[in-house]
């Protein structure tokens, strides 16, 4: 096995690429958690709402652990969590706006959460020591997210919701896959350093979990990676979460209570 790697051992461009990766994962988890939390009430059953709420808590806990990795870059994670403008968020575009219906929630589980977990799994197996220490527990919790997403996908696929969930998956997939495996220089640099596997391997990991279920809906998992409008600094396609979402992510309203 390769030697564990700390931030101090990285070149400047590797550090920039690793920081981008951590922010992409942390921001997506923070915002996906918000999207799941919206469905504590209004989910198809009480049990489903409780599960969605619990998944929201998982995502927020994971986000907190990921943001805290930035300490090793000499950054204060609290500032990163509280002070960034929406244009700085590096999340997968599918969570920029709230999910319109339960079909989009399920698409969020299988596409966004699935892609994020594929990326995290490769990160955990790589050389960055904080990732190999902290991520395995997250992956254990994510097994239930995967089961929940796939079970709901099967249910919707066999119901009148089939068309709607297929549409939602088709809408989320391109931007999420380009986010997960952009195939750009930063990704290649991290792969070369042994921090993450190649984008092709990450894509294959995602496909091994969801390929069959998507195939049953006539959806294939393919990506050409980052397009011309890809934002290389953030590692995502164009756009940003809406202002209300970022206010919730930063906790602006909570802190406003304590301002005299």
């Amino acid at each position, binding site marked *: 096995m390769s030697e564990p790697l700390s931030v101090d051992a990285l070149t400047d461009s590797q550090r920039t690429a690793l920081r981008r990766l951590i922010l992409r994962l942390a921001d997506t988890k923070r915002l996906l958690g918000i999207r799941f939390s919206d469905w504590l009430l209004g989910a*198809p*059953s*009480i*049990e*489903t709402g*409780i*599960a969605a709420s*619990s*998944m929201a808590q998982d995502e927020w806990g994971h986000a907190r652990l990921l943001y805290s990795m930035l300490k090793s870059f000499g950054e204060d994670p609290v500032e990163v969590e509280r002070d960034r403008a929406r244009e700085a968020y590096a999340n997968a575009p599918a969570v920029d706006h709230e999910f319109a219906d339960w079909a989009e929630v399920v698409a969020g589980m299988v596409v966004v959460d699935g892609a994020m977990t594929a990326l995290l799994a490769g990160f955990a197996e790589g050389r960055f020591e904080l990732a190999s220490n902290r991520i395995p527990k997250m992956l254990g919790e994510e097994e*239930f997210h995967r*089961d*929940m997403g*796939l*079970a*709901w996908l*099967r*249910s*919707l696929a066999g*119901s009148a*919701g089939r068309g709607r969930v297929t549409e939602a998956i088709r809408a989320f997939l391109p931007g999420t896959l380009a986010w997960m495996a952009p195939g750009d220089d930063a990704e290649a640099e991290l792969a070369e350093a042994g921090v993450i596997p190649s984008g092709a391997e990450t894509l294959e990991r995602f496909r091994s979990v969801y390929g069959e279920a998507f195939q049953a809906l006539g959806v294939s998992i393919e990506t050409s990676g980052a397009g011309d409008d890809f934002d290389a600094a953030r590692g995502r396609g164009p756009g940003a979460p809406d202002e209300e979402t970022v206010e919730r992510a930063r906790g602006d309203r909570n802190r406003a209570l304590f301002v005299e």
Partner: protein
Amino acid sequence: MSILEGEVFDVFARKERGDALQHIGYVDAPDIDLARVYAWKTYDELNWFEMCVVPRSAIVPVNRTDGPFAGNALGRPVVGGAR
């Protein structure tokens, strides 16, 4: 079965290895896969050593002709007498 037509699954768990498996609650779910997720996510207040779900329809009463499982007796005779 439609998405919303659920079945009742009873949830059993033990805190430590060697503890008795205890009934801790139930969930409504359309299938066993979602029952597993719902049980874990609903009853996760303790760090369980083991958790299991059982379709309530699979629990067959031995000594009672009333209660939540009575319908599963399917005409089998009561044994031992009920208190």
